[in-house]
């Protein structure tokens, strides 16, 4: 597994115009994405430093989910560029992008409800050989020991928290470099959220994570860097400590208050 290098200061995303070229695994520049007539992303840029957890924060409808979908190629951008590990991925087919080493854990988890948990994982493992499948499975079971109990159960019968374990594990069944996780806390009870958070904490040492989260408590606990987005463009970004200190910012863009 990759050592978790603390990113250099140059890699620190410092706002809407973050400078690519330093040790950033993923750089996204000037994304304009439409879904039908909906203009969702309106010039969004961000950089994800290697080996850290970057959190996308923002209200409902701010464009967080679309950002992840644009990176995976599910909603290709009209303008802008996506660079991953030095390679330009803009406009490539989703399955191509995935093969470059980007795992995706969608909102509502996107598990295959009619397949068993084992089949879900087997599918995620792609064409890898048996040994590598076992190695990855062992890693996942290490992370979520509970999963052993329901490996042969249909994924649709699982509780929300269990489904989340499966969804995250799926992203770990290949040698992915980056994991995009969309609102892992959504629809889960507080105690389950805590469990998901613990798992993500453990994951930090293995893989780079771009996390979308509305739950500020969760985001601030596990995030190293943040981007605050609204109306499809970024408001600000930086080390997580800065956001925690700035209660005015959180109230205005995440909580309930007057602008």
């Amino acid at each position: 597994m990759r050592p978790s290098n603390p990113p250099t200061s140059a890699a620190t995303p410092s706002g809407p115009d973050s400078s690519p070229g330093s040790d950033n695994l993923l750089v996204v520049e000037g994304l304009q994405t439409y879904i039908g007539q909906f203009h969702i992303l309106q010039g969004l840029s961000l950089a994800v430093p290697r080996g850290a957890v970057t959190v996308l924060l923002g209200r409902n409808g701010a464009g967080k989910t679309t950002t992840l979908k644009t990176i995976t190629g599910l909603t290709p951008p009209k303008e802008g560029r996506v660079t991953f590990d030095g390679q330009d991925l803009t406009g490539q087919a989703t399955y191509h992008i995935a093969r470059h080493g980007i795992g995706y854990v969608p909102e509502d988890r996107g598990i295959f409800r009619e397949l068993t948990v084992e089949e879900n994982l087997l599918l995620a493992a792609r064409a890898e050989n048996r040994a590598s499948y076992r190695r990855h499975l062992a890693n996942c079971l290490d992370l979520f020991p509970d999963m052993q109990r329901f490996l042969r159960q249909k994924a649709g019968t699982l509780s929300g928290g269990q489904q989340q374990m499966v969804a995250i594990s799926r992203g770990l069944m290949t040698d992915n470099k980056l994991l995009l996780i969309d609102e892992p806390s959504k629809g889960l009870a507080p105690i389950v959220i805590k469990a998901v958070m613990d798992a993500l904490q453990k994951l930090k040492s293995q893989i780079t994570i771009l996390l979308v989260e509305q739950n500020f408590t969760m985001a601030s606990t596990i995030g190293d860097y943040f981007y605050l987005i609204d109306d499809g463009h970024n408001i600000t970004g930086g080390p997580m400590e800065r956001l925690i200190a700035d209660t005015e910012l959180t109230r205005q863009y995440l909580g309930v208050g007057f602008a």
Partner: protein
Amino acid sequence: MKVASTPRQTAILRDPRLLTLLGVLAGLILLWIYLNTAITFPTFVRFFINGLVESSVLFLMASGLSLIFGLMDVVNFAHGAIFTWGGFAFIWAFNLFTTTAAEAKDKTSPLAWMQMGLGPLPATALALLVGLAVGALLGAIIEILAIRRLYGRPVFQILLTLGLVLVLDESMRLVFSLNSPSYDLQSSPWPSGNFRLGPDISVNWKSVAIVVTGLVVFIGVFWLLNRSKVGLVIRGGVEDNQMVQALGYNVKRYFFGVFALGSALAALGGVAFTITSNGGSQGMGQLNLLTAFVVVVIGGLGSFSGAAVGALLVGMITPFIGYHFSTIADSFVMILLVLVLLVRPQGLFGGKKY
């Protein structure tokens, strides 16, 4: 991470497929007791075997439809035309293969190499392959040229494939240059022997071959869907197309494969039909298509084993119901469709995929 899990609840007796199978058997026994006053036991067995053969042909047709319509949600009215194409290609190839070079009228024809003067069994086997290939090829062409643009637009699929019916039916006349719309297999030395199952009961070898083919296809496709990686991708792709792509699979290519496979199965159905009825006719595809739709809908959309049970149910109707009410036997299938759609639109195993 401790989260309460639901207990495993896979009590085998709750499986609706098994229950229905038992129900069908029970129904048949009751039917036999009732009919016993009217027909003798050997007649009953003969009807039953006829029903099995009919079910197998129906199943072959419906299995392709179940993959294309039930699983992938593509409405393909040209399925019937592919069925006919398969049957006609089979007879055409069979006739070529059984012709000896000496008998051939046109020795310079580019197809002269096919006139090998084979015996009926090897000729059947080879011609079967030709039929399958023709079906798969047609399916592939249709998918690439038309269906690919129309995923998720059912009305356009119907409109378009209805037009394809015209094209395929008409071009078949051109390709096989048929003046009379039917061929007669009986004139060819087809293995038409019987064997005795008991006193007064004899079974045609052809029937056995058809039923076995049906079983083999059922097991094969069931295995493909449920036990292979390809099946995993397809089942996943049907449920959440985008997620499978995000896992790194080119779903389009898999769907293309399914469409070609489904079309090949339709052609296989056509072959089986021409074998059982000793020849083909232009209208055979459309006629069977509607029944196959009924089978798939009764079985439940997207349920492959449902299609098998549906085929068994409908296949049994013709000999048994037909014996007593010959005028309404085919209407009965339609009434069944309407009833099923109104009472249980999801079909017997609807909502349960594959």
